[in-house]
C-alpha cells in the first residue's frame, strides 16, 4: 500500500480508496491514514495517479480539514500532492482557503478557540 522512504511516505489514493473518492466518509478514511503518518514522517506525498476526484466533500474531508487541526506551515511542509488534475488542484486550494477563513473566524472568539483546541488535542 505504501512505499515508505526514510522519513517520507507515499499515499496512493487509487490503491487505498479505489472508486470510493466521493463522500466525506471516503475522505475521512484518507485523512486517518495521513494522520497515522503525521508524527513519524517529515513528508507525506499524496499520489492521485491522475484520477479525477472532482468532489469537494472528499477533498475537504481528506485534506482541507487538516487546517483546523494543524497550522498552515505544518500542513504545507508535511504534505505534497502529485499527479493531481488541474481541476482537483483548484478545488483543493479553494477548500484550503475556505478552511483558513473558518479557522481565522474561530480564533476570534473564546468558544472558537476552544473548538480548535479540542480538534488539536484529538
Amino acid at each position, binding site marked *: 500500500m505504501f512505499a515508505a522512504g526514510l522519513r517520507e511516505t507515499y499515499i496512493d489514493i487509487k490503491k487505498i480508496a479505489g472508486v470510493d473518492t466521493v*463522500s466525506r466518509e471516503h475522505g475521512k478514511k484518507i485523512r486517518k491514514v495521513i494522520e497515522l503518518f503525521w508524527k513519524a514522517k517529515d513528508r507525506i506525498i499524496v499520489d492521485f495517479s491522475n484520477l479525477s476526484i472532482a468532489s*469537494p466533500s472528499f477533498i475537504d474531508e481528506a485534506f482541507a480539514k487538516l487546517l483546523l487541526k494543524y497550522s498552515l506551515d505544518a500542513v504545507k511542509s508535511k504534505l505534497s500532492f502529485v499527479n493531481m488534475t*488541474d*481541476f*482537483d488542484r*483548484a*478545488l483543493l*486550494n479553494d477548500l*484550503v482557503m475556505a478552511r483558513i477563513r473558518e479557522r481565522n473566524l474561530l480564533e476570534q472568539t473564546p468558544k472558537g478557540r476552544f473548538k480548535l483546541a479540542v480538534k488539536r488535542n484529538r
Partner: protein
Amino acid sequence: MQVIFPKLSTIAYADTIIKNCANVQKTRDISTFVFEKTTFIDPFAITIIAGAIQGCLRTKNRKIAYIPPKDRKLKDYLSQIGFNSFFHINGKNIHKDTSVELTQLMALRPLYIEKLIILIESKMSLSKGMKDSLKMSLQELLINVFDHSRSNSGCFVCAQYYPNKMLIRLCITDFGVGILSTLKKKYKITSDIKAIKLSVEEGVTSRPQSAGFGLTHIRKFLKINKGVLTIISGRGKVDFYSNRVAEYNMAGAFEGTIVNLEINTNKKSLYFLTGEEDYIF
C-alpha cells in the same frame, strides 16, 4: 381524476406540474396522467412525474392510466428515455445520442456516477473542465440526497443535451424531508426560500461537524459558466443566475428537493476558483 400536463412541461411551469403531481398522490381514485397536448418535456418534469407515478403505485390496489402525447416525436422520446417503464409499459429504451436515461438511485454509487459521466461524455462533446464540473455537480447533489434527504425512494436523475442551444439540463429530484426541515434544526429559519438561499452559502450544513461546500461549488461553477441553478423545496423556488437571484413562492408545496442545472456547453469553464498565483498547493 385527470391531471393534464402543460403543452410545455418544463421547469418554467413548475407550479402547475408540482400541483398536478401532489394532487394525484392525494387521491385514491384512478388517476389519469394526460400528456395529450404536451409537445415538450424537460428533465425536471420527467423526474418529478416519474416520482409521482411511483408514489401512487406504492399504495396497494392503486390504479393509474396514461394518455401519451399526440406528438409522435415526444412519444418516442418518452419511450426511449425510460419514462414509460414507470407506467409499466414496455418502452424501447434506445440510447439516444443526446439524452441520459431516467434513473432511480437508491444509494450513492461511485461506479454509477463514473458510468454516467462516461455516458454523458460519449454523447455530448465536453471540454475537460466541463466534464469535471459536471462530475462534481452530480456527486455533490447525490451526496446531499443520501446524506440529508431521508427519502424512501432515493432520487430520480435525468439529463438532456440540446445541441442547438448548446445546453445541458440535468435534474435530480428526491421526495425526502426538504431543505427547510433539514436546516431548521441548526439555523433559525422559517421559510423555504430562506432555507434554499442559505443552503448554497459556504459552510452551511445540517451536519454536526463543519461541512457544506457542495452546493456552494456548484453555484460557483454555474456562475462562471453563466448557467442557471434552480432549487425547489417546499413552497420555495429559487433561480440562481450568474448575476442575479430570482425567488418565487409557489402555490403548492413540493415535499422533497429538486435541483435543476442548466449548463452552457459552449463555455470552456475550466474551474479555476482562486487564481493560480494564490495556490498554496
